[in-house]
């Protein structure tokens, strides 16, 4: 499937960012959208590794890092749902790592939220 690049503000809430600020955010939004396939691929690869028992806490921490970046920018760019999901993923992974839980058990708990996040990212890209 060939996915066409999204228009700069497709899929965003209609009233955000305010019209006057849209030129300010245009380049950042484009870059955010362009990076979505890479970020989806990265998260999926790490999840596969962890599920195949090749995972280490470091790989789980890498998922948290990607989620951290998404959480920092998505809400600013008018994608609050992606921002909230990313923040949940980051927090739950970090909590699990702090509690010294195995990567597989952390993933089992946070997996559904990661899936929803990946779905929302796909929507933002395809729209």
């Amino acid at each position, binding site marked *: 499937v060939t996915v066409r690049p999204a228009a700069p503000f497709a899929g965003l809430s209609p009233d955000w960012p305010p019209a006057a*600020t849209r030129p*300010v*955010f245009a*380049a*950042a939004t484009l*870059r*955010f959208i362009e*990076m979505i396939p890479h970020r989806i691929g990265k998260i999926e690869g790490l999840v596969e590794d962890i599920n195949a028992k090749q995972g280490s806490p470091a790989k789980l921490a890498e998922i948290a*890092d990607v989620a*951290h*970046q998404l*959480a*920092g*920018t*998505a*809400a*600013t*760019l008018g994608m609050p749902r992606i*921002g909230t999901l990313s*923040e949940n993923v980051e*927090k739950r992974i970090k909590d699990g790592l702090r509690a010294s839980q195995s990567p597989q058990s952390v993933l089992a708990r946070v997996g559904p939220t990661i899936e929803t996040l990946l779905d929302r990212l796909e929507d933002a890209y395809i729209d």
Partner: protein
Amino acid sequence: MRFICVDDDPVFLDIIAANLRGQGFSRIECVGSAREVLDLVGDGARQVDCFLVDIQMPEIDGIQLCRALRAIPGYRQTPIVMVTKMSEKGYVDQAFAAGATDYVTKPLDQLEFRSRINMVKRLHDERKRTASLREQQSRFGDDAPKLDFASPALIPAIDNAVEYFALENYLLTLGKVRLFGSSVLAINMSNAQVFHGSCDAGAFLDVLGDVGQSIFEGLKIHQFLISYAGSGNFVIFLSERTEIDTESLECQINGALMQFETTFAMDRLPVPQVTVGPSVSCGIFTTGRPTKMLERSISLAQPNGPPARIAGRLSA
């Protein structure tokens, strides 16, 4: 003004840069790691006027970078604005202790960002004015203008020293509970006006450094931040609710300053003398701005009652 922005997320760098351009700034460099920042400033080829630093970055994080920048003589006073997620506000304490000037949160609120950057610009302009005063002093000697007596200044060569307005920002970041566990005390240099009248800007700052060092020695078993608020007033923020024996501290500081007696005598100056005010704590039900603690502590440290400007604000 020249900015360096550092974040491991290129999208957020785009957002920051776009906002700065929207405020009319054009000299903006964006880099993806703390290491790149240190490489850029390390060669000394460029003078940076403000750093915008993401706190959470791999390898060297924003707090470590802040500390490293403050260790470079040319960047001891350069504004460093930390960028952090709302959920990471716990790191802000460490950032201020490492020398940060201010912070903004992600998601970025454009109005808040604009006001923070405007504040940085004012600080930058004020610093330029001070630097110009020092330069004029060296060129014109006694005919050069002086620092305003009432103006805050950064105490030179003290590790825990922060700008007064950075200390105010820090207090504003603390929640009620954290503020409840802390205290503030002010130390008034009663003959500061004499030094201000007799010294050029550079020498006056050096005297502030001598007094600051003596205060530092007297409080070194505590965790604290120190700032010079202007008009001879030093303010100390203690991150613990502690009873300080102010009489003993006052003796200790004045005793330490007496060691400079010969040096001051050579310049026909008296030895600086200080009065330590009582520590001020915030009650859990106290209302009003947290920065009111600073004003109150300064007021209580005055040997002859609060200065008119402070008294006016306290009664307001």
